[in-house]
Every structure is written in C-alpha cells, then in structure tokens.
C-alpha cells in the first residue's frame, strides 16, 4: 500500500488541470447553452503557443502563460464575433455543427501549419522531481496544478463577486429576463466565450511541458472535460470541479489496478452510465432548461 500517497498526489495534480479545462466548457454551456465541440482545439492551440514561444523566442512556458491570457481572450472574442455570434440564437443542430466545423478547421489548420509530428517542450527543469512523504512528482505538474487551481479560483471569484460575473450568472439563469433588465446579452455571450477560451488556452500552455503536442492532442483532454461537465451537471461550475476530481481518481486508481490501456474505457463507461442514470449530473437538478431544449 506504499503506492497510495503517490496515487493521491497524482490524482490531485491531474484533477487541477482537468478542472480548468472543464470549467471553461461548463461556463460556456451554462451561459450560452452551447456545447463547444471545438474546446479541445483551443487547448491544442494553447499548447502550440507554448511550444512556439519556447522554440523561437526562448520563452519559458510560464512566461508564455501570462502572455496567453490576453491572447486567448482576443482569440475567443474574435471567434465569437466571427463564428459563434451569428448563430447563437440558431437551433441546436446549427450550433453543434458550427462548433464541429470550427473544430475540424482549427485541427487541420494546425496540421497544415505544424505537421502531424509530435512536438515536445523540454525545459531545463523538466526532469526535476520533488519528493514529499513517499510521493514523487514533477515540477511541471506541480506548477500546472497550482496555476490551474489559482485560475479556477480566480474565475470563481470573478463569477461570484464582480458585477460582470453577476451579469453573466443572470444571463445563464434567464436570457430573456436579463435582456429585459437592460443586459446586453450578446456582449455577455462574447465575454463568456472569450473567458472560456482563455481558460482552456491557459490549460493548454500548462500541459505543453508535460504532454506531447500534436494537432489532435486536444481530443483526449476534451473528452475528459465532456465527462466532467456532464458528471457535474452541464453549466454547474462547482460540479465540474468535483467531477474533475472524480474522473482523475477513476483514471489514476483505475490505471493502477487494471492498467493504463483501459483507463479511457473506464471513464467513458462511467460517462454513459451517468448519462443513463442521472443525465443532469451527480449534483444537478434535472431542469427542463438544460435537458428539454
């Protein structure tokens, strides 16, 4: 049982980044009622940003992180204005296929620009390992965890206490009523989309020093994020964070017990089971708004 502390630490480190990816996705769903199928592609773009900045400018990935926040916001804002905004009041099909189209276009843009070769970002301190209480962990993972938790907490504080956050929550609750109260919902959607993209872009920068970077790298993480978001209840940010922890636990302990080859199957089956048993998520109320659209 000497492995238990290591497993717990690994779970926590993994959960931090999963939470950051999932929170952006669930925020976008909660406010805009859109499942962003291109979420993974923005993660991938964040990873390439870190790799590119490191290769050409010798930027440390954590310096890139600071730069990535305004860039992510700008990219999000522009993609809303250009692609999402015009169809935000469209039917489900239109929204699903618009984000799917965006996903294919971005993925293959990366393929054409950066080729399919996996790239690695290796900092000098990549191999530095910290040992605490029988558990060993990598510096990049710890930084990723700390920054992800800080960003997630920042987003929560923003949603909870800032006026803009309040406006976003109001729009999430009832878009028509908030429009009647004088809220510019289109601007709120743009902001929400941009904030969601910023989160996932930052997550990409944090993951770049740990995982190989290739055009479809976002898919594996975003699948986890979908599971977390549904598990937590679509649109529920606290639920998404708890669900990220649940999935990281399943993944880490599952891999330890039955081997890494089947860990994805494990959480996908968990996902399907949750969809069948509790489609509104573990903590969610089965609301007509979220389900019966």
């Amino acid at each position: 049982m000497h492995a238990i502390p290591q497993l717990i630490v690994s779970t926590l480190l993994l959960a931090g980044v999963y939470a950051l990816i999932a929170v952006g996705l669930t925020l976008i769903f909660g406010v805009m009622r859109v499942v962003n199928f291109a979420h993974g592609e923005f993660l991938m773009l964040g990873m390439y940003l870190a790799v590119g900045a490191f290769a050409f400018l010798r930027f440390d990935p954590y310096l890139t992180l600071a730069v990535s926040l305004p860039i992510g916001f700008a990219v999000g804002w522009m993609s809303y204005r250009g692609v999402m905004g015009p169809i935000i009041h469209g039917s489900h099909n239109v929204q699903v296929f618009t984000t799917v189209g965006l996903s294919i276009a971005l993925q293959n843009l990366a393929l054409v620009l950066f080729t399919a070769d996996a790239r690695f970002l290796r900092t000098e301190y990549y191999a530095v390992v910290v040992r605490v209480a029988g558990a060993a962990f990598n510096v990049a993972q710890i930084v990723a965890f700390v920054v992800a938790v800080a960003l997630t907490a920042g987003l929560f504080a923003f949603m909870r206490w800032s006026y803009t956050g309040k406006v976003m929550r109001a729009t999430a609750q009832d878009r028509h009523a908030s429009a009647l109260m004088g809220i510019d919902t289109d601007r709120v959607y743009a902001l929400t989309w941009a904030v969601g993209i910023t989160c996932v872009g930052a997550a990409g920068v944090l993951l770049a020093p740990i995982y190989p970077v290739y055009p479809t790298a976002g898919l594996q993480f975003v699948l986890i994020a979908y599971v977390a978001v549904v598990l937590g209840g679509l649109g529920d940010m606290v639920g998404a964070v708890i669900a990220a922890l649940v999935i990281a636990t399943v993944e880490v302990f599952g891999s330890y017990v039955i081997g890494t080859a089947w860990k994805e199957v494990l959480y996908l089956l968990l996902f399907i089971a949750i969809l069948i048993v509790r489609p509104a998520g573990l903590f969610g109320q089965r609301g007509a708004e979220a389900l019966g659209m």
Partner: protein
Amino acid sequence: MRALAPAAVFFASAALAPLVVHDAFFLDGLVLILLWGTTAAAWNVAGGYAGQISLGHSAFFGLGAYGAAILGTRWELSPWLGLVAGAAVATAIGLVIGYLSNRLRGPYFVLATIAFSQVLLLGGSRWRAFTAGSEGIPVPFRPGFWTLGLVDKRLWVWILLAFAVLAYLVALYLERARRGYQLAAVREDEDAALSLGVPARRLKVVAICVSAALTAACGALWAQYVGFVDPFYVFSIDLSIRFALAAIVGGLGTALGPFLGAALVTTVETYLRAEFGGIGGRFIGTYLIVYGCALIVMVRWLPQGLVGWIGARWHRGAAARTTP
C-alpha cells in the same frame, strides 16, 4: 412522379456510367460517392428525419467493417454474412442508443453518441485477442461474388448502387408514409406529437436502428472494397462527421440530398487531395479545413442544403414562368 425525376436521373446515370466509362479512377470515384452517399442517407434517417443528431455513427460503420473482416479472417465466412452480423450488432447498439435518445436531448444525446463510438474505438484498438488491436485487420482478397473479391469496379458500382437505392427508398418511405409524417412531428415537437398519440419513443428507436443497420452494411462493403480495417479510422469522430457533413451539404431530411452532398464532398476532396496532397503530404489537411469551413458556412447560410437551395430556385423559376 415529377418529384422523383431528379433521383431517377441520378441513379440511372450512376448505373449506366460504368457501361460507357471504363476509367478506373472515375469508377473508383463513383463507388466512393455511392458509398458515402449511402452512409449519409443512413445518417439522415436518424439525424435528418428523426432529428436525432449523432456524432457517433462511425460506431455502426466500424461494427460492419469489423463484422466482415473478423468473420472473413477468423472463420473464412462470406463478407455478406459479416455484413448481416455487423448490421445485427449495430441494430442492437442502435436499440441502446435509441433508448438513450428517449432520455437525452440536444447536446446530451450528441455527447452520448460520441462516447459510444469512442468506447468501440478503444475496444477495437485494445482488445488484441479478438480484433487484432491497433494494427488493424488486412482483409484477404478471395475472388468471387460470394466472397466479394471483385476486381471489376463496375460490379462494385452496381452493388453499392443497390444499397444506395435501398437507402433512398427508406427515405422516400419516410417522406410519403404515415410513419414518416409522424416521425417529422416527433422531430419538430416531441411533446406535441406525444400528446397527439404518436408513438414517439418507438419511432425514434426504430429510425435509429434502421440508420445503424444501413451504416453497418456500408462499413462491411467498405472493408471489403478497401481491403483494410483500421480501428482509428472506422470508429473515428471524423468519420461520423463525414456522414453528417454530406447530409447537411445535400440537405437534412431530404431523400436525394445526402447523395448530392456526398457527390460534391467526395469530388472536392479527391480534387484537393490530388492538388495539395502530393509532395511530403504537407497539405494533407487542406481539404479538411475546407470541410470545416463549409460546415460553418452551410449551417449558417444554407441550412436547407443544396436540395433546398436548388428547390427554391426551381420554384421561383417555375412561378416566374406561370405568372405573366
């Protein structure tokens, strides 16, 4: 009858073209157009007519492909039996997904279908003892019609044409029959349809099962035609999107639309591949960028697809001719 004329012309020219043109490149293109057209038409039964948007239809396609490949390599059985077996398993999975469609709506359903295809992808690529794992299965070439080892591409055109016409007839049934109208009612407003006594749940499940079985049949034929089954391709999300894309480009919920969409998409793809796919394959993704942008543009400006667009022009033209 006049409404059927475009389809009659389309299928008749596909049937007669091999008699005139013997060019292998052209026939290969025709086979692929009919194959992708049939998969799109099958997707359209669930996605277009029943309104159950799936991005996991590659699950069914892969089951068909694996059905043919595994029965063929392991027990040396005919791919036709594999086709039937694959379609049967796909129908069973279709029942489960159909059941889910009664519990999940909108984005939840889309996510569930993706999860299904991903589970099968992982199963296909990791369960080495049964599926040969991630290397995939080379399908042996055994000459003969029963074993589907056909060198003559004209035969392939005609076999696929038979399935294409079958898929078209299913769509036509949905456009003409009482059940089809009921299904359209379910798609537009399920609660209203239920309150009028339409067996909404059963209709949706049946539509998804028919769609699944047809898609699996295409998968089995594709495995036999291409000669290789790769789990990362046959179960991929990209493939599911391809089915949907052709149906959307052609026209959601139209009988001929998926075939026109597939014809356009496949032709553009072949052209772009020939043009940009050459040296080093650096631009191998170009046609997919075009795909993605086409999808965004189509759903925004032409949600009715090609058929809707042509139809509108036709009617306007006809109206202009009759009114002096």
